[in-house]
């Protein structure tokens, strides 16, 4: 039984079946991108254990095909197991060993990246300074104590805690937050509009003037969800008299402000922030076009990087194909605000970014050795025949 299993796991047949399944999956996933968009298709087909039917929202679902993680995982096991079992050193096998070692590096690197890489953005208008980047795909509720004029004290609550509903408590806060309503995606309407159909879900602050319409999740590439949450604030100390229900939403420009226990507080629902021990200031954003056309020639951001811990204060130019790598993070020129008024930098933290570079060199060397070995042997025999 075990022997059979080992035979299966190390078999070349399994390799070929997995490779073929990978091809089918990639083909189907690529076609699906037309309707689902790249991000969604990627989640369903490639970054999953199974491809499900029907996708979601029904009472049942069944796996119809192995997903990218499953196929990749089996291939990796198959690759390692086959080599562990059959490995014996011989110079003529050098190419094959190198090739497969490189592939292991690449697959493992891919897995690491999926698990540990963090992508975020830094949006900077001309002259702006920021010491954080944001990920607009996830929200957080920031409860900010602004009483002290010198600094703000921020308590951030991830969106998952809000989605779960119920009561949110935190040691820093003298009150607890009860989630009354949660909308993943919503549209806001002013209630003083003549034909307003929606009622307020909050009774305090500017949010009380706003009706919230729940809408389905956004699927387009350029669209994103506008999350709205209604929170009731209840003090921890008796008398625990409610401070009312407040609306926080990605669609509201200003924070909700209230006072409690002689302190001033702000509530904001905003994209998740990643704070950094250094700051970035946008000095100048340039957008060059080819003469007489609208074809972009180059985008560049001139920034000042200030890191008090490491006494760094220098100007850096970030432009196409020339990112800034600093303290484990990489800043790329990703886009620009309307009318070139500001720059958008993509900030990536990927501890295994070196893996593909290494893998490429190792595999290429392996293939060269392997095929070169064939070719030399072939031409040698060929010569022997001709002579």
């Amino acid at each position, binding site marked *: 039984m075990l022997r059979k299993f080992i035979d299966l796991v190390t078999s070349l047949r399994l390799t*070929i079946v997995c490779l073929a399944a990978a091809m089918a999956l990639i083909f189907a996933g690529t076609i699906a991108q*037309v309707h689902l968009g790249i991000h969604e298709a990627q989640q369903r087909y490639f970054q999953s254990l199974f491809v499900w039917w029907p996708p979601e929202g029904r009472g049942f679902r069944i796996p119809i095909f192995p997903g990218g993680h499953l196929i990749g995982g089996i291939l990796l096991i198959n690759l390692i197991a086959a080599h562990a079992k059959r490995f014996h050193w011989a110079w003529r096998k050098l190419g094959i060993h190198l090739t497969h070692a490189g592939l292991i590096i690449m697959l493992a690197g891919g897995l690491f990246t999926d698990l540990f890489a963090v992508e975020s953005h830094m949006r900077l208008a001309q002259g702006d300074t920021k010491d954080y980047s944001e990920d607009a795909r996830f929200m957080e509720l920031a409860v900010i104590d602004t009483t002290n004029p010198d600094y703000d004290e921020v308590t951030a609550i991830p969106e998952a805690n809000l989605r779960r509903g119920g009561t949110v408590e935190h040691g820093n806060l003298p009150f607890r937050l009860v989630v009354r309503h949660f909308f993943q995606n919503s549209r806001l309407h002013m209630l003083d509009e003549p034909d307003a159909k929606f009622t307020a879900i909050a009774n305090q602050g500017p949010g009380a003037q706003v009706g919230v319409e729940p809408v389905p999740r956004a699927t387009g590439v350029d669209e994103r969800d506008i999350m709205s949450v209604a929170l009731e604030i209840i003090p921890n100390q008796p008398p625990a008299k409610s401070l009312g229900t407040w609306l926080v939403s990605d669609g509201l420009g200003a924070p909700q402000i209230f006072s409690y226990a002689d302190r001033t507080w702000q509530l904001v629902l905003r994209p998740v922030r990643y704070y950094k021990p250094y700051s970035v200031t946008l000095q100048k954003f340039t957008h060059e076009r080819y003469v007489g056309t609208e074809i972009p020639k180059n*985008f560049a951001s001139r920034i000042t990087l200030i890191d008090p811990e490491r006494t760094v204060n220098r100007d850096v130019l970030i432009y196409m194909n020339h990112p800034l790598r600093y303290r484990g993070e990489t800043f790329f020129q990703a886009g620009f605000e309307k009318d070139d008024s500001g720059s958008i930098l993509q900030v990536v933290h990927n501890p295994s970014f070196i893996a593909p570079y290494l893998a*490429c060199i190792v595999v290429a060397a392996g293939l060269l050795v392997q095929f070169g*070995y064939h070719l030399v042997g072939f031409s040698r025999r060929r010569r022997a025949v001709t002579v």
Partner: protein
Amino acid sequence: MRRSFPWLVLLLAAGWLAGSWRPPTVEKNELDLTALGKLPVLVGGRIKPLDTVARNSLLIIHGKQTVRLANGKEISAMQWLADVVYRPALADDYPVFVIQNAEVLGLFGWEQGDRKYFSFAELSPFLKQIEEQGAQSEKLESVQRSAYQSAVLNLRNSLVLCQRLKNSLQPEDAQNFTKELEAYASMLPAGAQAARQREMGENFDKTKLDSAAGFVQRYETIASAAYLLAVPSAQGADWHSIGEILLQAMRTGEIHPVVKAYAQIGDAYRAEDRRSFDQQVDLLGGWFAKGQTTPTQRASFEFLFNRVDPFTHCMVLYVLAFLLACGSWLGWSRPLNRAAFYLLLLTLAVHTFGMISRMYLQERPPVTNLYSSAIFIGWGAVIVSLVLERIFRDGIGAACAGAIGFITLIIAHHLAGSGDTLEMLQAVLDTNIWLATHVVAITTGYAAMFLAGMLAIIYVVRGVFTSSLKKQTADSLTRMTYGVVCFATLFSFVGTVLGGIWADQSWGRFWGWDPKENGAVLIVLWCAIILHARWGGFIKQRGLMIMALFGNVVTSFSWFGVNMLGVGLHSYGFMQKAFPWLVGFMVSQLVLMTMAAMPLERWRSFRSSLGTPPRKGQPRDLKFVSPGLAVEATPD
């Protein structure tokens, strides 16, 4: 004869090629547009000769680089452009606008007949309708447009382009532009002063200002319409349209010599004054050569490149070589084979010249867009085929070279329909290192995959339909295919990973599941499957051929298919028209695969040998296989 035949073929081909280098003769009563065609202008961000502008514009509007007039006379693109800019009233009657869509014709109340080319004069009553319909379909994504919507939008764009060309070197209604410029120049100081005075709130001469206003309005119109930027600034980096320069003259008080020169050329052209025309064009050419040396040289070279038209010549020669190589399998092998080989060497030289010329003109590595990828795939496949031919000397490599060379150039020819094939590159592509490594490696991988597929096609067609596929030939085909698949694996893999590294450098992610990336990885996976299936002994000779045929399907999907999906960062250019061709090609490969899977009795080549099937363990001749894994040389 056996000895001299190959040389004779080579000589004839070289003579034919040499003919295209000679400038065409100009009839006595006609103007010579050669020098005019060499003048540099800036269009689409690139400095190019007027001749290129003429050819590309005509290609967009007319679908061809020459126009046949109603009286049966054929005129060149440059002739057409000269008429459009200098004699628009005449050019309005040229049947250049191609309309093949019945619904578009129906829009004008016309029935579909034999004609597909229409003149501006015929279309002018419907301009408003065309504009409206075109604007409607422009709002849609290209993928969503119906055939009618695409056709009407194309027509709209062609008309706009034509209209812009008419106003590029002078206002379209100018009869004597030199005189008009003189009037403008004499009015300038006073008119400019009046304008300044009015701006400052001082007293000004109203009649002077009014006469200036008439000119300004006129030149603002042509400045906004101009398609060409014909006047370089003093530093040479910035170019301006003639309209802009004339408006600037309000400030400087002077009219730029280039504007004057183009006006005089136009007047001489209209008067058909050959001497004055040549003189003025030479003067302007001299002015450019002095102040703009490099662009002028480049433009002049591009003019030559346009006339020599290397790729069209290559197409013809590739077909010839293919036929010679196929003929060598039927008889008179050596001379035909040799002739094919020599001819291919010559053709490859021309092909290389064409490719290097493009690299010089663009200052880029060879592959920058889909068009150049086709040129490069053909080039790479021809080289590898010729190496195979040199080793095996059985005509197979030569036949592959001829077939792939021809097919890829035909594909390139059809990809050129959208205009300039030397277009400028989007910001993220503006890096020669990655274009030279990633893109070249990927396209070399495509070339090798197609070559392996071509070898398999030869195997199947010769094996099934003829009795010429002897055991030795079949074995060498197998070895070639296997070797080429190895080659393809190396380049596809390296190219794909380099693409990932490029993406990591510019977007911060190594792999983004973009359709083009997926296409590339499909090829790598398929190569890996072929190699592992072969090493594991799951496939033998025919299995390898069937898989190589499917490689054609995978590669064509990766090269073209993913672009048709219209998603992702690599979707440069949606090609609705190519879709049926792509599907047709894929189906043909599937048919060949089915044929290859037929039992051996149905193969004409193997039928006879079935009586004594070669058994395992028989002495085999040389093998080209992985160490330690025996591979059968028998066809099953």
